[in-house]
């Protein structure tokens, strides 16, 4: 029985190498192209404190580009990829629904409204040099989830079907509200539309630091409940019969996954498809055991977002394609392919 565990651990190892490779590639490519070997050496020199046999000037330029610009962007892409994929895994597990993703219960529509309000009504305002957009987006996302959650709650229980329907209804309402606010700021529409499509342009280490605490707290918490998530897949009642406090764990997981997704949306806008397809793709290989599905999805999701961002920056350089467009362009056909191929169903 244990050969399966061994196989899964080797998946994690392969995915780690994949992520490292994609990160190096993404850091090296761009308007100024840095040789892969140089990037490797600079990273190695920082870690192991070795001297590099390149001339000083080039190194300094490369270091500046890498550490001031590229690495921040790459690390942020990693964080956002992890947050969206892991919350996608959690949502699909709890909802036992293949169409569930972090946006289904209002994270995206709430964030969109918040961002639009910040950009159009409070434009130019900022807190400690920070734009109000991510702050409002985060507030919008979490408030919406809170609202949807309470709307769906009946007594002490939160039925899954009601939660999905409430999310869809509130989402439609918020989309309308967002469109309405846009009427007042035709000048800022360009910014809003780009924000809504998601991306990492002009993002820096501050954004990385904003997301860090959410990941540091959220990921271990979700992993802590990974075995319970397996049992929840059998249905809440069955999980309860097997000694799992289904209702309590479901509530904790919904809150944590939503905060994780909200933090990602706040810094990067709405990047579609990652939370939906990454868990599916990984599940096809690892199977549904969350103890492996969660780490594998995190690693693969991170690689996927880093790679998509690389394409977004370089395909039509110097014009940057919105990241959400790339993830959808690559994600949707692949998802359809999976749908057609797997005759046994989506799980």
């Amino acid at each position, binding site marked *: 029985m244990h050969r399966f565990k061994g196989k899964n651990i080797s998946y994690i190892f392969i995915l780690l190498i994949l992520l490292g490779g994609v990160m190096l590639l993404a850091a090296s490519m761009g308007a100024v192209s840095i040789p892969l070997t140089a990037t490797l050496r600079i990273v190695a020199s920082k870690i192991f404190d070795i001297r590099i046999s390149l001339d000083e000037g080039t190194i300094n330029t490369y270091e500046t580009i890498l550490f001031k610009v590229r690495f921040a962007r790459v690390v942020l892409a990693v964080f956002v990829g992890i947050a969206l994929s892991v919350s996608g895994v959690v949502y699909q597990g709890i909802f036992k629904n293949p169409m569930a993703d972090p946006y289904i219960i209002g994270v995206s529509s709430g964030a969109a409204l918040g961002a639009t309000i910040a950009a159009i009504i409070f434009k130019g305002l900022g807190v400690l040099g920070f734009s109000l957009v991510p702050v409002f987006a985060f507030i919008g996302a979490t408030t919406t989830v809170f609202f949807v959650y309470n709307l769906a709650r009946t007594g002490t229980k939160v039925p899954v079907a009601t939660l999905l329907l409430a999310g869809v209804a509130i989402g439609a309402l918020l989309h309308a509200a967002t469109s309405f606010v846009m009427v007042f700021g035709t000048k800022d529409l360009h910014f809003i539309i780009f924000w809504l499509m998601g991306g990492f342009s002009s993002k820096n280490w501050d954004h990385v630091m904003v997301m860090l605490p959410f990941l540091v707290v959220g990921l271990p918490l979700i992993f802590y409940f990974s075995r319970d998530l397996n*049992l929840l897949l*059998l249905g809440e009642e069955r999980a309860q019969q097997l000694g799992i406090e289904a209702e309590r764990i479901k509530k904790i997981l919904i809150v944590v996954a939503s905060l994780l997704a909200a933090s990602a949306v706040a810094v990067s806008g709405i990047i579609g498809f990652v939370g939906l397809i990454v868990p599916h793709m990984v599940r096809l290989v690892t199977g549904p055991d969350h103890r492996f599905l969660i780490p594998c999805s995190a690693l693969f999701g991170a690689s996927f977002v880093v790679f998509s961002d690389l394409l977004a920056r370089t395909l039509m350089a110097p014009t940057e394609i919105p990241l959400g467009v790339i993830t959808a362009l690559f994600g949707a056909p692949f998802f359809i392919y999976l749908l057609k191929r797997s005759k*046994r169903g989506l799980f």
Partner: protein
Amino acid sequence: MLRLEDVYCGYGDGKEIIKGVSFNVEKGDFVGIVGPNGCGKSTLIKGVSGVLRSKGKVLLEGKNIREMSIKQIAKKLAIVPQNFRTEFGFTVYEIVSMGRAPYLKRFRAETSKDICATENAMRSTDTLRFAESKINELSGGEAQRVVIAQAIAQEPKILILDEPTSHLDINYQLEIMELVKKLNEDGLTVLMVIHDLNLAAAYCKRLIILKDGLVLDDGPIDSVLTDDNILKSFGVDVLVHRNPLTGKKYITSVPKPSVLRDKIKGRIHVICGSGAGTPIMYGLRDMGYLVSAGVLNVLDTDEEVAEKFGIEVVSEAPFSSISDDAFKLNLDMIKGVDFVVLANIPIGEGNIKNLFAAEKAIEMGKIVVILEETPIKERDYTGGKAAGLINNLYRQGAVSAKDNGDVFKIIGSMSECQN
């Protein structure tokens, strides 16, 4: 082991489904809970397992389950749900090992004890051979075995099954029941909600009948499974027999009368025995005739059925030849009827007087219908005497019928002519 004291239980909308149920399940017992849909069987199980809140006391090994954590309950009491299906492609081994959930510590892998319990559970349910198969690719019967294995992996003191066979074909039904029986014989206490009364009668040691959230009757199968109790709980008329192979009770349903009659069409006397007359008596009664029968031995199948339907019978002591008294009584009864039907019965020295009665009936001017599905020669145990009598009857105008339907047709058309 498991004791319920005045338990009330419902879905929190103020309406109680279970309205004060008390019973006690002893260690090693095999108890079936039966009752019509909506009587609260499944609700009761949810209350017992702590999934639903209940009023009153549910004591598990003397401890109130409300003072136990859900994990503690899961270590002593395992549930097998009605229909276990999951879309997710867990392997059978993974599913069964989930039964160890109440024993596992956070962030720790399964110990050798957990692995042992999982494999033992699979061995005792014969699921080890598809350990690596995906649960969502198994047949319904196989999946049900797997979920029983999952419950066994919990190493419970009591196994509670909620209609484990209701979605299965008959071969799987029996397979699952045999499995549960084996587990019970190995010492596991079993409480099973079951909708198939015959399976319940064949496998359970004790039966609890629920009706409208209350216990209607509770006791050994033989004392509880009566037509009276089933009429009271399910509202249907049944016949309770014994399986000739096992001696266990089983029931068959009695169809509702096809037409309501307010007028008796005529009177018919049926000469029968050992079950041959049952469909004739039932069919003629259903057509609206007033039926009588005789002479029958007490405890004969036909006699029991006649009794059940209130058909007047001339009876004789069990395994005895027809006495002159019974013969006379039979003739008295034949005097009042329009038709006499002679069922397809074997004739021996013990019941040859019934042929004399048929002869007398013809003399009295009654129409005698002889059902001859098998030629009389093959069921004549009187050395040709009976065959001779039958031939005589034909000569005197008795009508021959080749099956039950023929009997009904002949009598139907003849009684129309009479009117």
